[in-house]
Protein backbone atom coordinates (compact mmCIF):
# COMPACT_ATOMS: atom_id res chain seq x y z
CA UNK A 1 0.00 0.00 0.00
CA UNK A 2 2.79 2.35 0.95
CA UNK A 3 4.60 1.42 -2.26
CA UNK A 4 1.47 2.13 -4.31
CA UNK A 5 1.00 5.55 -2.78
CA UNK A 6 4.66 6.31 -3.41
CA UNK A 7 4.24 5.36 -7.07
CA UNK A 8 1.09 7.47 -7.26
CA UNK A 9 2.85 10.42 -5.67
CA UNK A 10 5.72 10.10 -8.13
CA UNK A 11 3.30 9.92 -11.03
CA UNK A 12 1.51 13.00 -9.76
CA UNK A 13 4.76 14.95 -9.43
CA UNK A 14 5.90 13.84 -12.90
CA UNK A 15 2.54 14.77 -14.38
CA UNK A 16 2.67 18.19 -12.76
CA UNK A 17 6.18 18.68 -14.05
CA UNK A 18 5.14 17.86 -17.59
CA UNK A 19 2.13 20.13 -17.30
CA UNK A 20 4.37 22.97 -16.11
CA UNK A 21 6.83 22.32 -18.92
CA UNK A 22 4.05 22.40 -21.47
CA UNK A 23 2.64 25.56 -19.93
CA UNK A 24 6.12 27.11 -19.96
CA UNK A 25 6.60 26.29 -23.61
CA UNK A 26 3.23 27.66 -24.43
CA UNK A 27 4.07 30.88 -22.69
CA UNK A 28 7.43 31.44 -24.34
CA UNK A 29 6.43 30.56 -27.89
CA UNK A 30 3.69 31.90 -30.06
CA UNK A 31 2.77 30.94 -33.55
CA UNK A 32 1.36 33.18 -36.22
CA UNK A 33 -0.37 30.47 -38.20
CA UNK A 34 1.78 30.87 -41.30
CA UNK A 35 4.66 28.79 -40.06
CA UNK A 36 6.04 31.73 -38.12
CA UNK A 37 6.79 31.43 -34.43
CA UNK A 38 8.61 33.45 -31.80
CA UNK A 39 10.59 31.63 -29.13
CA UNK A 40 12.93 32.42 -26.26
CA UNK A 41 11.80 36.00 -25.74
CA UNK A 42 13.24 37.83 -22.74
CA UNK A 43 14.02 41.31 -21.47
CA UNK A 44 17.01 41.71 -19.15
CA UNK A 45 16.16 43.89 -16.17
CA UNK A 46 17.32 47.29 -17.44
CA UNK A 47 20.33 48.83 -15.73
CA UNK A 48 19.24 52.26 -16.94
CA UNK A 49 15.75 53.46 -16.07
CA UNK A 50 15.58 55.03 -19.54
CA UNK A 51 16.25 52.13 -21.87
CA UNK A 52 15.70 48.38 -22.10
CA UNK A 53 16.30 45.72 -24.73
CA UNK A 54 14.22 42.74 -25.85
CA UNK A 55 15.59 39.57 -27.41
CA UNK A 56 13.92 36.59 -29.10
CA UNK A 57 14.19 34.24 -32.05
CA UNK A 58 11.75 34.29 -34.97
CA UNK A 59 11.36 30.94 -36.70
CA UNK A 60 9.85 30.46 -40.09
CA UNK A 61 8.76 26.91 -40.87
CA UNK A 62 6.95 28.10 -43.96
CA UNK A 63 8.11 27.83 -47.54
CA UNK A 64 8.25 31.57 -48.19
CA UNK A 65 10.38 34.23 -46.58
CA UNK A 66 8.67 36.49 -44.05
CA UNK A 67 9.38 40.12 -43.30
CA UNK A 68 9.32 41.37 -39.73
CA UNK A 69 8.34 45.02 -39.94
CA UNK A 70 8.19 46.11 -36.33
CA UNK A 71 7.84 45.28 -32.66
CA UNK A 72 5.42 46.89 -30.22
CA UNK A 73 5.44 46.44 -26.48
CA UNK A 74 3.22 47.20 -23.53
CA UNK A 75 6.30 48.40 -21.66
CA UNK A 76 6.61 51.62 -23.62
CA UNK A 77 5.27 53.58 -26.55
CA UNK A 78 8.72 53.64 -28.04
CA UNK A 79 10.30 50.48 -29.37
CA UNK A 80 12.44 50.06 -32.41
CA UNK A 81 14.53 47.38 -34.01
CA UNK A 82 18.26 48.02 -33.91
CA UNK A 83 21.43 46.31 -34.87
CA UNK A 84 24.67 46.80 -32.95
CA UNK A 85 27.76 46.67 -35.07
CA UNK A 86 31.21 45.50 -34.17
CA UNK A 87 32.64 49.00 -34.49
CA UNK A 88 30.71 50.34 -31.52
CA UNK A 89 27.81 51.84 -33.42
CA UNK A 90 24.16 51.04 -33.64
CA UNK A 91 21.67 51.55 -36.43
CA UNK A 92 17.94 51.38 -36.78
CA UNK A 93 16.57 48.50 -38.80
CA UNK A 94 13.33 49.01 -40.73
CA UNK A 95 12.60 45.37 -41.39
CA UNK A 96 14.18 41.98 -41.00
CA UNK A 97 13.72 39.10 -43.42
CA UNK A 98 13.17 35.69 -41.90
CA UNK A 99 14.14 33.17 -44.57
CA UNK A 100 11.89 30.26 -45.50
CA UNK A 101 12.64 27.25 -43.29
CA UNK A 102 15.01 29.49 -41.34
CA UNK A 103 15.20 31.74 -38.32
CA UNK A 104 16.51 35.10 -37.20
CA UNK A 105 17.85 35.66 -33.70
CA UNK A 106 17.56 38.96 -31.92
CA UNK A 107 20.48 38.34 -29.59
CA UNK A 108 22.98 40.18 -27.40
CA UNK A 109 25.44 42.25 -29.40
CA UNK A 110 23.44 42.13 -32.61
CA UNK A 111 19.80 42.61 -33.50
CA UNK A 112 17.71 43.81 -30.57
CA UNK A 113 14.58 45.77 -29.83
CA UNK A 114 15.42 49.01 -28.08
CA UNK A 115 12.66 50.00 -25.68
CA UNK A 116 12.93 53.66 -24.74
CA UNK A 117 11.50 55.05 -21.50
CA UNK A 118 10.04 51.72 -20.35
CA UNK A 119 7.80 51.41 -17.38
CA UNK A 120 9.64 50.23 -14.28
CA UNK A 121 10.76 46.69 -15.07
CA UNK A 122 12.03 44.31 -12.42
CA UNK A 123 13.14 40.70 -12.62
CA UNK A 124 10.04 38.53 -12.44
CA UNK A 125 7.86 41.00 -14.32
CA UNK A 126 6.77 40.26 -17.84
CA UNK A 127 6.57 42.31 -21.00
CA UNK A 128 4.29 41.72 -23.95
CA UNK A 129 5.91 41.95 -27.34
CA UNK A 130 3.88 42.11 -30.53
CA UNK A 131 5.79 41.40 -33.70
CA UNK A 132 4.24 42.67 -36.90
CA UNK A 133 4.92 41.12 -40.27
CA UNK A 134 4.31 42.10 -43.83
CA UNK A 135 1.73 39.70 -45.23
CA UNK A 136 1.31 37.67 -42.03
CA UNK A 137 -0.64 38.09 -38.82
CA UNK A 138 1.10 39.74 -35.88
CA UNK A 139 2.45 37.48 -33.14
CA UNK A 140 2.29 38.42 -29.47
CA UNK A 141 4.58 36.80 -26.92
CA UNK A 142 5.10 37.30 -23.22
CA UNK A 143 8.74 37.92 -22.39
CA UNK A 144 9.94 37.45 -18.83
CA UNK A 145 12.09 40.17 -17.31
CA UNK A 146 15.24 38.29 -16.37
CA UNK A 147 18.20 39.22 -14.20
CA UNK A 148 20.34 42.01 -15.59
CA UNK A 149 23.08 39.56 -16.51
CA UNK A 150 20.97 36.74 -17.90
CA UNK A 151 22.43 35.11 -21.00
CA UNK A 152 20.50 32.34 -22.73
CA UNK A 153 22.34 29.00 -22.70
CA UNK A 154 24.74 28.80 -25.62
CA UNK A 155 24.50 32.50 -26.37
CA UNK A 156 27.37 34.83 -27.08
Amino acid at each position, binding site marked *: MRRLSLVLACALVAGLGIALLVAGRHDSAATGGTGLSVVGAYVPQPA*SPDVAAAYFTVRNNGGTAARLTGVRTDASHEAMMHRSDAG*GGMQMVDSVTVPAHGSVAFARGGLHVMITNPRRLRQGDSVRLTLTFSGAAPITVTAPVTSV*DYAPPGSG
Partner: protein
Amino acid sequence: MRSSGGRWRVCRLAAPILAVLMVAVVSVAGCGTSRPAGAAAIISDPATRSPYRGTVLQVPLKEPDVRLTDTGGHTFDLRARTKGKLTLLYFGYTHCPDVCPTTMADLAATLRQLPAAQQARIAVVFVTSDPARDTPGVIRQWLDSFNASFIGLTGPFPVIQTAAKSVGVPIVAPVTKGNDYQVTHGAEVLAFDPTDQLAHVVYTSGTTSADYAHDLPVLLSGGAS
Protein backbone atom coordinates in the same frame (compact mmCIF):
# COMPACT_ATOMS: atom_id res chain seq x y z
CA MET B 1 15.61 58.55 -36.25
CA ARG B 2 19.04 57.09 -36.69
CA SER B 3 20.58 57.40 -40.06
CA SER B 4 23.42 55.47 -41.51
CA GLY B 5 25.27 58.74 -42.00
CA GLY B 6 26.41 58.80 -38.41
CA ARG B 7 27.51 55.26 -38.61
CA TRP B 8 29.69 55.87 -41.62
CA ARG B 9 31.27 58.81 -39.97
CA VAL B 10 32.20 56.53 -37.10
CA CYS B 11 33.60 53.99 -39.51
CA ARG B 12 35.72 56.56 -41.30
CA LEU B 13 37.18 57.65 -38.03
CA ALA B 14 37.63 54.10 -36.88
CA ALA B 15 39.32 52.85 -40.01
CA PRO B 16 42.84 54.22 -39.57
CA ILE B 17 42.90 53.46 -35.86
CA LEU B 18 41.57 49.97 -36.36
CA ALA B 19 43.99 49.38 -39.20
CA VAL B 20 46.89 50.05 -36.86
CA LEU B 21 45.34 47.76 -34.28
CA MET B 22 44.66 45.00 -36.73
CA VAL B 23 48.18 44.98 -38.10
CA ALA B 24 49.41 44.75 -34.53
CA VAL B 25 47.37 41.68 -33.88
CA VAL B 26 49.41 38.55 -33.96
CA SER B 27 46.95 35.82 -33.23
CA VAL B 28 43.45 34.96 -32.24
CA ALA B 29 42.96 31.85 -30.21
CA GLY B 30 40.27 29.52 -31.47
CA CYS B 31 37.54 29.77 -28.90
CA GLY B 32 34.29 28.98 -30.59
CA THR B 33 33.19 32.58 -30.38
CA SER B 34 32.00 33.92 -33.67
CA ARG B 35 33.86 37.10 -34.47
CA PRO B 36 31.80 40.09 -35.48
CA ALA B 37 32.04 41.11 -39.11
CA GLY B 38 34.04 44.23 -38.35
CA ALA B 39 36.79 42.15 -36.79
CA ALA B 40 37.28 40.15 -39.98
CA ALA B 41 40.44 42.07 -40.79
CA ILE B 42 42.19 40.60 -37.77
CA ILE B 43 45.16 38.62 -38.93
CA SER B 44 44.62 35.30 -37.28
CA ASP B 45 46.67 32.20 -37.26
CA PRO B 46 44.80 29.31 -35.68
CA ALA B 47 48.05 27.36 -35.55
CA THR B 48 49.58 29.87 -33.16
CA ARG B 49 49.06 28.76 -29.61
CA SER B 50 47.83 31.55 -27.38
CA PRO B 51 47.00 31.13 -23.71
CA TYR B 52 44.14 33.57 -24.27
CA ARG B 53 40.76 33.50 -25.88
CA GLY B 54 40.98 37.25 -26.30
CA THR B 55 42.79 38.97 -29.12
CA VAL B 56 46.51 39.22 -28.45
CA LEU B 57 48.18 42.47 -29.53
CA GLN B 58 51.66 42.26 -30.94
CA VAL B 59 52.22 45.88 -30.01
CA PRO B 60 50.76 46.36 -26.52
CA LEU B 61 48.78 49.48 -25.70
CA LYS B 62 49.68 51.76 -22.82
CA GLU B 63 47.04 52.37 -20.16
CA PRO B 64 45.82 55.94 -20.75
CA ASP B 65 47.51 58.57 -18.62
CA VAL B 66 44.36 60.49 -17.81
CA ARG B 67 42.64 62.11 -14.86
CA LEU B 68 38.87 61.86 -14.80
CA THR B 69 36.12 62.14 -12.20
CA ASP B 70 34.85 59.10 -10.35
CA THR B 71 31.27 58.44 -9.29
CA GLY B 72 31.98 60.04 -5.92
CA GLY B 73 32.86 63.26 -7.72
CA HIS B 74 36.58 62.95 -6.95
CA THR B 75 39.55 63.16 -9.30
CA PHE B 76 40.67 59.74 -10.46
CA ASP B 77 44.15 59.30 -11.89
CA LEU B 78 43.65 56.16 -13.96
CA ARG B 79 47.21 54.83 -14.04
CA ALA B 80 48.01 55.69 -10.43
CA ARG B 81 44.77 54.30 -9.02
CA THR B 82 44.76 51.05 -10.96
CA LYS B 83 48.43 50.15 -10.59
CA GLY B 84 48.79 46.64 -9.24
CA LYS B 85 45.40 45.57 -10.55
CA LEU B 86 44.39 43.80 -13.68
CA THR B 87 42.40 46.67 -15.19
CA LEU B 88 39.55 46.00 -17.59
CA LEU B 89 38.77 49.27 -19.36
CA TYR B 90 35.62 49.90 -21.35
CA PHE B 91 34.20 53.02 -22.99
CA GLY B 92 30.41 53.07 -23.17
CA TYR B 93 27.27 54.91 -22.11
CA THR B 94 24.39 54.11 -19.83
CA HIS B 95 21.63 54.76 -22.37
CA CYS B 96 23.10 52.03 -24.56
CA PRO B 97 20.49 49.26 -24.75
CA ASP B 98 22.51 46.30 -25.90
CA VAL B 99 26.28 46.07 -26.05
CA CYS B 100 27.28 48.21 -23.03
CA PRO B 101 25.02 46.52 -20.45
CA THR B 102 25.80 43.14 -21.98
CA THR B 103 29.52 43.77 -21.60
CA MET B 104 29.16 44.94 -18.00
CA ALA B 105 26.85 42.03 -17.21
CA ASP B 106 29.29 39.50 -18.62
CA LEU B 107 32.17 40.99 -16.66
CA ALA B 108 30.06 40.98 -13.48
CA ALA B 109 29.02 37.37 -14.05
CA THR B 110 32.64 36.42 -14.65
CA LEU B 111 33.92 38.09 -11.51
CA ARG B 112 31.32 36.30 -9.42
CA GLN B 113 32.78 32.99 -10.57
CA LEU B 114 36.29 33.90 -9.43
CA PRO B 115 37.67 33.44 -5.91
CA ALA B 116 37.43 36.60 -3.78
CA ALA B 117 41.22 36.93 -3.76
CA GLN B 118 41.27 37.15 -7.55
CA GLN B 119 38.28 39.49 -7.67
CA ALA B 120 40.15 41.86 -5.36
CA ARG B 121 43.00 42.07 -7.87
CA ILE B 122 40.76 43.14 -10.75
CA ALA B 123 39.51 46.66 -11.46
CA VAL B 124 36.67 47.06 -13.93
CA VAL B 125 36.67 50.64 -15.20
CA PHE B 126 33.78 52.06 -17.20
CA VAL B 127 34.42 55.43 -18.86
CA THR B 128 31.38 57.16 -20.30
CA SER B 129 31.35 58.28 -23.91
CA ASP B 130 28.27 60.39 -23.12
CA PRO B 131 29.34 62.69 -20.27
CA ALA B 132 26.48 65.13 -20.88
CA ARG B 133 23.90 62.61 -19.69
CA ASP B 134 26.11 60.28 -17.67
CA THR B 135 26.63 62.22 -14.47
CA PRO B 136 28.57 60.52 -11.67
CA GLY B 137 25.24 59.64 -10.02
CA VAL B 138 23.73 58.16 -13.16
CA ILE B 139 26.86 56.09 -13.77
CA ARG B 140 26.94 54.87 -10.16
CA GLN B 141 23.32 53.72 -10.25
CA TRP B 142 23.88 51.97 -13.57
CA LEU B 143 27.07 50.20 -12.48
CA ASP B 144 25.49 49.12 -9.20
CA SER B 145 23.06 47.02 -11.24
CA PHE B 146 26.04 44.90 -12.23
CA ASN B 147 28.65 45.17 -9.52
CA ALA B 148 29.03 47.89 -6.89
CA SER B 149 32.82 47.62 -7.09
CA PHE B 150 32.96 48.66 -10.74
CA ILE B 151 34.64 52.03 -11.18
CA GLY B 152 32.79 54.65 -13.23
CA LEU B 153 34.51 57.69 -14.71
CA THR B 154 33.43 60.81 -16.50
CA GLY B 155 34.97 64.10 -17.56
CA PRO B 156 35.12 66.57 -20.43
CA PHE B 157 34.36 64.77 -23.69
CA PRO B 158 37.61 65.78 -25.45
CA VAL B 159 39.64 64.33 -22.57
CA ILE B 160 37.71 61.07 -22.73
CA GLN B 161 37.99 60.96 -26.51
CA THR B 162 41.74 61.47 -26.40
CA ALA B 163 42.14 58.73 -23.81
CA ALA B 164 40.00 56.37 -25.88
CA LYS B 165 41.86 57.20 -29.07
CA SER B 166 45.19 56.46 -27.39
CA VAL B 167 44.09 52.84 -27.03
CA GLY B 168 42.50 52.57 -30.46
CA VAL B 169 38.91 53.08 -29.36
CA PRO B 170 37.11 55.51 -31.65
CA ILE B 171 34.35 57.45 -29.95
CA VAL B 172 32.66 60.53 -31.36
CA ALA B 173 30.84 63.35 -29.62
CA PRO B 174 27.13 62.53 -29.15
CA VAL B 175 25.04 63.95 -31.97
CA THR B 176 21.45 65.06 -31.72
CA LYS B 177 19.37 64.57 -34.85
CA GLY B 178 15.77 65.58 -34.38
CA ASN B 179 14.55 63.42 -31.56
CA ASP B 180 17.44 61.08 -31.91
CA TYR B 181 20.55 61.23 -29.80
CA GLN B 182 23.42 59.34 -31.30
CA VAL B 183 26.28 57.99 -29.22
CA THR B 184 29.01 55.50 -29.93
CA HIS B 185 30.68 53.18 -27.51
CA GLY B 186 33.91 51.25 -27.53
CA ALA B 187 34.03 48.00 -29.37
CA GLU B 188 36.27 46.25 -26.92
CA VAL B 189 37.41 45.72 -23.37
CA LEU B 190 41.12 46.33 -22.88
CA ALA B 191 42.92 44.29 -20.24
CA PHE B 192 45.86 46.14 -18.69
CA ASP B 193 48.48 44.09 -16.94
CA PRO B 194 48.80 44.78 -13.18
CA THR B 195 52.54 45.25 -13.41
CA ASP B 196 53.48 46.88 -16.71
CA GLN B 197 50.10 48.58 -17.20
CA LEU B 198 50.07 47.56 -20.84
CA ALA B 199 47.19 45.91 -22.64
CA HIS B 200 48.49 42.77 -24.28
CA VAL B 201 45.01 41.39 -24.86
CA VAL B 202 41.71 42.97 -25.93
CA TYR B 203 38.20 41.54 -25.99
CA THR B 204 35.63 42.29 -28.66
CA SER B 205 31.96 42.75 -27.85
CA GLY B 206 31.20 39.14 -28.79
CA THR B 207 33.33 37.79 -25.94
CA THR B 208 31.42 35.43 -23.66
CA SER B 209 31.53 35.23 -19.91
CA ALA B 210 33.17 31.81 -20.30
CA ASP B 211 35.94 33.38 -22.38
CA TYR B 212 36.59 36.00 -19.70
CA ALA B 213 36.49 33.37 -16.99
CA HIS B 214 39.12 31.44 -18.90
CA ASP B 215 41.43 34.39 -19.48
CA LEU B 216 41.28 36.51 -16.33
CA PRO B 217 43.10 34.01 -14.07
CA VAL B 218 45.79 33.64 -16.76
CA LEU B 219 46.14 37.41 -16.98
CA LEU B 220 46.36 37.62 -13.18
CA SER B 221 49.12 35.04 -13.14
CA GLY B 222 51.21 37.28 -15.40
CA GLY B 223 50.79 35.12 -18.45
CA ALA B 224 50.98 38.09 -20.77
CA SER B 225 54.49 39.15 -19.95
